[in-house]
């Protein structure tokens, strides 16, 4: 395969980039190479949003604009995409020559939404993406979700949130989508990216067979999807991840299919897309989907990456395991499927073989009497790593538990099913007494760690607490039956 430079659309033209290491971040490129210093570094780990930029891609013939963290995105992942930074904003919609600000920028000024101003370009970019993706002013919840990856230490957020309706009150402007799409078409005509810089290779196959072949040919190369974890190996641990095989250009890997057989989510689907599908399939995912990392991380990261990474605190796996998900693995032309819980062998050790990659996840359709919940508990509501993430899938028929799958994150070295608790619950009546007794089984089943997020004792109590919460939400003897007595903080939100 012949090598070529990285190509992307930036500042109204197609840029070529060569000679940089494949692990050079988009933020380093912007600040150090082209001296576009509006985009800031606040943490270099995708947790503060000061570096937020917007990427444009052609999806189903339309321009899709999404905010991501430039600090952990590698430059070659820009290939074939359009990059927008804060410097682009006041030039959009033909406003550049008039000296006017973009509506979101003007609204931020008018609402006194900047103090020190260091986080502000990141907020402006998150709001720009929100603005482009919503023709009408969205709900406060959606506004909050769009800002979940942006930290501000000065304002306390109120004026930033209040800026959004004001932005919508101004004459609407928009990116010249046709021009960007034309550039993206031009980029799509280029061959798949094979890039070598600073002695490291970055391969971006475009089809599954190409990916399978590339993986077999280079089993030691690192698979790279959303960069939301591998990015930190580079920016924080200063590791060299070696040659990279990038999954983001394989369209088939992003496939999502819901049918009578259940739900299939390709490993390359972004977390944003994957959670959209999961919440449509099972609405009980809604809250966890919103609280999973932040919007920019969900835009960049993939469900396959979260699952394959095998972190004991990954928030998708407990729910997927409880729902009976299978993981589909491909090596060359060989496909195999495993129950997801069997994929995890030990701390950060999975069943993935050399030359193999994750193709996707399959969830069977839930039975009608399934009670499913997945909850995370962490210090902060937005963008925090769980102390405990729990998921419960109980099949209750005639007041008795006929099926039970329970899994936790944060309670062991891997995401782990609570098999003893499941066994205890099975066939027993669904009652407070059963739940109290099951909580005792659960307490013996895990020996969680103590760390900076929570103590072992806290984790154990919360696991039991979540089981109790499940009972309270699903008890069949609920006298009022109307849920008037709140059992979760979220129940109060409606009354605000």
């Amino acid at each position, binding site marked *: 395969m012949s090598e070529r430079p990285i190509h992307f659309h930036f500042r109204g033209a197609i840029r070529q980039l060569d000679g940089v290491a494949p692990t050079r971040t988009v933020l*380093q490129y912007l600040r*150090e190479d082209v*001296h576009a*210093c*509006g985009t*800031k*570094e*606040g*943490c*270099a*780990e995708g947790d*503060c949003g000061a570096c937020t930029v917007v990427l444009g891609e052609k999806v189903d013939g339309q321009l899709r604009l999404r905010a991501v963290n430039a600090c952990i995105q590698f430059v070659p992942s820009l290939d074939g995409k359009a990059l927008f*930074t*804060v*410097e682009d904003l006041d030039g959009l919609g033909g406003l550049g020559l008039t000296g006017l*600000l973009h509506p979101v*920028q003007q609204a*931020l*000024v008018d609402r*006194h939404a*900047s*103090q*020190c*101003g*260091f986080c*502000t*370009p990141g907020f*402006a970019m998150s709001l720009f993406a929100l603005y482009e993706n919503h023709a009408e002013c969205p709900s406060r919840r959606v506004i909050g979700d769009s*800002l*979940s990856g942006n930290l501000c*230490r*000065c*304002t*306390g*957020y109120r004026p930033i*949130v209040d800026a959004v309706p004001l932005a919508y009150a101004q004459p609407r402007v928009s990116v010249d989508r046709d021009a960007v799409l034309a550039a993206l078409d031009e980029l799509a005509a280029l061959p798949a990216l094979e890039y070598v810089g600073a002695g490291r290779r970055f391969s971006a196959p475009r089809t599954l067979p190409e990916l399978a072949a590339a993986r077999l040919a280079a089993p030691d190369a690192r698979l790279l999807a959303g960069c939301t974890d591998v990015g930190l190996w580079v920016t924080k641990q200063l590791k060299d991840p070696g040659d990279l095989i990038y999954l983001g250009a394989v369209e088939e890997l992003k496939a999502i299919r819901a049918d009578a057989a259940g739900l299939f989510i390709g490993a390359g689907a972004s977390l944003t897309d994957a959670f959209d599908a999961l919440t449509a399939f099972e609405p009980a995912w809604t809250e966890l989907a919103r609280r999973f990392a932040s919007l920019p991380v969900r835009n960049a990261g993939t469900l396959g990456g979260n699952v394959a990474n095998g972190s004991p605190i990954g928030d998708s796996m407990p729910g997927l395991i409880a729902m009976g998900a299978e993981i589909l693995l491909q090596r060359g032309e060989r496909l195999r499927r495993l129950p997801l819980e069997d994929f995890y062998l030990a701390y950060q050790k999975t069943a993935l073989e050399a030359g193999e990659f994750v193709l996707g996840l399959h969830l069977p359709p839930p039975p009608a009497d399934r009670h499913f919940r997945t909850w995370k*508990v*962490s*210090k*902060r*509501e*937005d*963008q*925090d790593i769980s102390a405990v993430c729990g998921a419960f899938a109980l099949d209750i028929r005639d007041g008795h538990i006929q099926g039970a799958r329970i899994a936790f994150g944060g309670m062991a070295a891997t995401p782990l099913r609570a098999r003893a608790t499941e066994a205890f619950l099975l066939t027993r009546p669904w009652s407070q007494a059963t739940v109290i007794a099951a909580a005792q089984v659960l307490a013996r089943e895990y020996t969680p760690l103590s760390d*900076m997020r*929570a103590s072992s004792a*806290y984790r154990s*109590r*919360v696991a039991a*607490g*979540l089981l109790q*919460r499940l009972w309270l939400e699903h008890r069949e003897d609920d006298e009022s039956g109307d849920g008037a*007595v*709140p*059992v*979760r*903080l979220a129940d*109060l*939100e409606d009354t*605000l």
Partner: protein
Amino acid sequence: MNAPDPKPLPGVGAGLPHESAHLHVTGRATYVDDIAVPAGTLHAALGLSSVAHGRIRVLDLSAVRAAPGVRDVIVAADIPGINDCGPVKHDDPILCAGEILFHGQPLFAVAADSHDAARRAARLARVEVEPLPAILTAAAAAEAESWVLPPVEVSRGDTPAALAEAPHRLRGEIQLGGQEHFYLEGQIACAIPGEDHTLRLLTSTQHPTEMQHMVAHALGWRVHQVIAECRRMGGGFGGKESQSAQIACIAAVLAVRSGKAVKLRLDRDDDMRITGKRHDFHIEYEAGFDDRGQILGLRLLLASRCGFSTDLSGPVNDRAIFHADNAYYLDAVDILSLRGLTHTVSNTAFRGFGGPQGMFAIESVIDDIARHLGLDALAVRQVNFYGDNAGDSRNLTHYGMKVEDNVIGPLVAQLASSSDYAARRAAIDAFNATSPIIKKGLALTPVKFGISFTATFYNQAGALVHVYNDGTVLVSHGGTEMGQGLYTKIRQIVAQEFGLPVEDVRLSATDTSRVPNTSATAASSGSDLNGKAAQAACQAIRGRIAGFVAERLGVSQDAVLFAAGQVSAPGFDAPFAAVVADAYRARVQLWDAGFYKTPKIHYDPVTMQGRPFYYFSYGASVSEVAIDTLTGESKVLRVDILHDVGRSINPALDIGQIEGGFIQGMGWLTTEELVYASDGRLATHAPSTYKIPAVSDLPRDFRVALFDNENVEDSIHRSKAVGEPPLMLAFSVFFALRDAVAAALGPGARPRLDAPATPEAILKALNGGAL
């Protein structure tokens, strides 16, 4: 309370946007890292210790020196001047001098061709250390009598007797956590060598003069060889008062050695590991009180973790003592303040500067008293308030200052009414009676905060005002801009003096070569001090222009007015620019320096008696919260704030400070947990593990209002300082959480809830203090 001025002044009093807002939103505001550097600029990084206490046996830097792109490596011995950057005492080594004093202490510095190369090289050192026993907590320091400064005791009355005779007595203790500043822009300095042994320092600092001094000392130079400049910071909050010095000094030493510009920008994790934070406190008390909850005697222990060096811990702990009364009259009181030396980062200034910790202590006491007596905590607060008239015997603080501007009574009454406190209290009680899992809590807490640096000599400021002969104005002053809007307020003050639109007034970067001997922009004093200094300069210039016009017209100087961009007198009206151009040709001096020193203040640092504060700022807040008793998770449902900023120079900026300070204080007391491992390593050294409030933490119902008031003292346009006081409004969140926990436990409960009230801390409190 005085009626507000019915005619808002043009400029002053207007809610204008931040003077840099249009630059912030477009990314065009330049911070130190954005300023174009000379060709060949080197980038520095630091090598850090991985033990809390020990002696360096071997520091082998050969691999560091040999790493790609490395141009220079320095250790303590390479510092040509004094290896110290301590602001008060000389116990703050710039680089470790042999004895490692905390986990993360810089041992050496690298200069390389790129930021990345320097960071990579800095990890290649081979370090052998003989470990020594480490003291890690305030309690351990107290037990070992390990002090950065000797204990301080402040007493009034016969406290043992008052306690013995009181109808009720309580004892309690509580842990109050520290706080990372988490300014979004990390510590950074860029040192640019100049001709003839000079240096220009671009620094993100609240204290340019101290950076100038520290750099000169580190280089073995005299102060006039160094210029320190700061246009803006990406947040400070106290974290860039003294803590920016180490960064500046290392960049300067490397720059002078290499002859090249050197930029040192800390990676976020390094920043959090190296720099000091808010002091955490161990608090114990014994209180005696009557049936109404009025405190008759109080014994208070305030033990803080100062870290490995003195830094600003003296005045921080002093301010904790001064604020241990908050808004309450303490008749017989005995306060013991312990300043623990520990093998951790050197804790430092942070918005409130010890005041929040002292105030938290007394609020905890009041809350306990109320719960013990079964009274509403608001009622107990009110019976303890300072008296509000001059003849009242209950208006003398424990440090001998008479409270002459007290508005806490009417302010709290107004807030209790506007927030519907009593009805909501009843509604919450009713809710809790029927809700076994989710419990609500409510609290109203007051704030009284003393304004002035307790180091009296710091209460001075200078400004330099240029009127150019086209009628435009450029202002320099000693204060720094960290987002609080100081430049905006100064701009309004100056525009007001000349009767100009604010567009005709610009602010230049704060620069020690324009205004010397500046004080830190701290203690909420920026506008009070620099505003008055700028005003004085303007008045001198305006006087000369008025004199020039008056002489020409043969009228009195007082008859010459400056308004709406015009200079006018009976029978005369001309644009300011035209008058200025004439004045210039008539050889009238159109620029001047202004100076201000705060009047009335004095205090004896030995006896801790006197008038350390020019005036007090007041405020109060009501928070309603809910907790989940199964997990300890919590949610703030509604917040009402009423705050006194005197006569506001810019209400939009002031409300921004109030809201931002409140949320930052809420973070301190809820989600922001600094966790140190048993080896002294900070385990929460990045935003992935240290959680400042995010957008979902913004209360859904957040009502903020300014209290109609006017400073009784002659402050700049009768305004009041606003930077720090609102942080303490967040106490209402903490005590509302405690209220919710108590509701879950039943009548009479006085749960031990330590701060921060994380979900784990709340669940622990619900479970009787253990899990």
